[in-house]
């Protein structure tokens, strides 16, 4: 899977972010994307091959694996990385729109293309809220789909065509649990950073408005 595009996108967004936004990008890149690319993909590579049930009934393993893993954890993780990185595109698009407007009118309309004022401030705020929403949404989905954040070494399965309640063994459960916990901790860190950035932006705007009001008063 090629993650170069996502990496380039994240580096491109860096220019238009606030200080905390840049920290978020660094955390996202170093801990989420790099750990995923370097380690996580390999841990789940042989998940179905090494999934073993204590039964020789053909089809029993397939059915039990499908029931317990409707979507593979590593694929859900990849989807989360993509969805959480894309709201930053809104900011890039808005800056590109400003640039094209200035070119069309052939005069300087903004203090600087990347200054966070007016419409760009709202775009940045919306992108932050959507990012946080996605992070929380995916964490809740993960928890609901797999009944928690730990992977058991043994599951009991009695779906047809399994003849009775059979024991099925998952491969590398401890390693998978460690990586899922790593993902959960990084997601929580990203959510906290997003909240701090949101409050910082709203507070800064509020203080600016108050100062303007007081300076206008005679």
């Amino acid at each position: 899977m090629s993650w170069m595009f996502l990496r380039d996108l994240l580096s491109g967004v860096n220019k238009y972010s606030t200080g905390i936004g840049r920290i978020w990008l660094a955390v996202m890149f170093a801990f989420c994307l790099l750990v995923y690319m370097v380690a996580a993909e390999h841990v789940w590579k042989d998940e179905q091959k090494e999934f073993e049930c204590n039964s020789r009934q053909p089809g029993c393993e397939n059915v039990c694996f499908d029931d317990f893993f409707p979507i593979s954890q590593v694929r859900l993780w990849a989807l989360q990385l993509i969805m959480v990185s894309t709201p930053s595109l809104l900011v890039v698009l808005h800056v590109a729109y400003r640039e094209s407007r200035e070119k069309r009118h052939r005069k300087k309309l903004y203090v600087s293309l990347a200054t966070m004022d007016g419409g760009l401030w709202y775009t940045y705020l919306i992108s932050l809220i959507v990012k946080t929403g996605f992070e929380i949404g995916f964490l809740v989905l993960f928890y609901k789909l797999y009944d928690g954040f730990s992977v058991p070494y043994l599951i009991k399965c009695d779906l047809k065509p399994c003849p009775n309640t059979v024991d099925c063994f998952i491969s590398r459960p401890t390693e998978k649990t460690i990586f899922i916990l790593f993902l959960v901790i990084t997601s929580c860190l990203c959510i906290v950073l997003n909240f701090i950035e949101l409050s910082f932006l709203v507070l800064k705007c509020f203080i600016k408005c108050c100062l303007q009001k007081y300076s206008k008063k005679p």
Partner: protein
Amino acid sequence: MDWGALHTLIGGVNKHSTSIGKVWVTVIFIFRVMILVVAAHEVWGDEQEDFVCNTLQPGCKNVCYDHFFPVSHIRLWALQLIFVSTPALLVAMHVAYYRHETTRKFRRGDKRNEFKDIEDIKKQKVRIEGSLWWTYTSSIFFRIIFEAAFMYVFYFLYNGYHLPWVLKCGIDPCPNLVDCFISRPTEKTVFTIFMISASVICMLLNVAELCYLLLRVCFRRSKRAQTQRNHPNHALKESKQNEMNELISDSGQNAITGFPS
């Protein structure tokens, strides 16, 4: 798997590092990342496939493998490299913040005599002093802590740095104490010892860099204290000379006025 991005990140910080820091980056990339990418993956590629237990009981192999290898060696090394490289982000962010402030002052007109234009600010090598010294020193300190922590975790998880060729396993659902055989134990031991040695070298380089930075600061402070101590003596000598000159000129005047007409 892409280590190029990590290389770009560390390479960027490398410009502002000390010479020992530059050696550290070379050791990390040649002896650790390259070895991990080129060799370790080939050696550990079939670790679970070729892990064989002396039983036909389904699930016994999975459970025994999971018990003896909670985290695979190569994943642990990859995590170690990522964690050890991330403190460099602190330095990168500090340098970026310093450049941002300098550009802002330049635009206001404050630092026009120091730099010709904004490109000059971006190209300038930032010196490790003041608050950047603290950031750089903290990043080296965290690097040492992470290296030591991972080496300890490795030792604790695998009961040393040597891989045995047979393990005894009696965990449910294994019916009794079964023999389980690891694939390529000697080759894995060789690579493990190589990676541990490279970790130790990196840790020693970091300790040396820390000592160098501390000594440099102490040396600078003592030099400054020395010049301050010499300066008052020099001032005293000057004022005494001035007094003598005044006396000479006064006595000269008196000599002229006292000349008998």
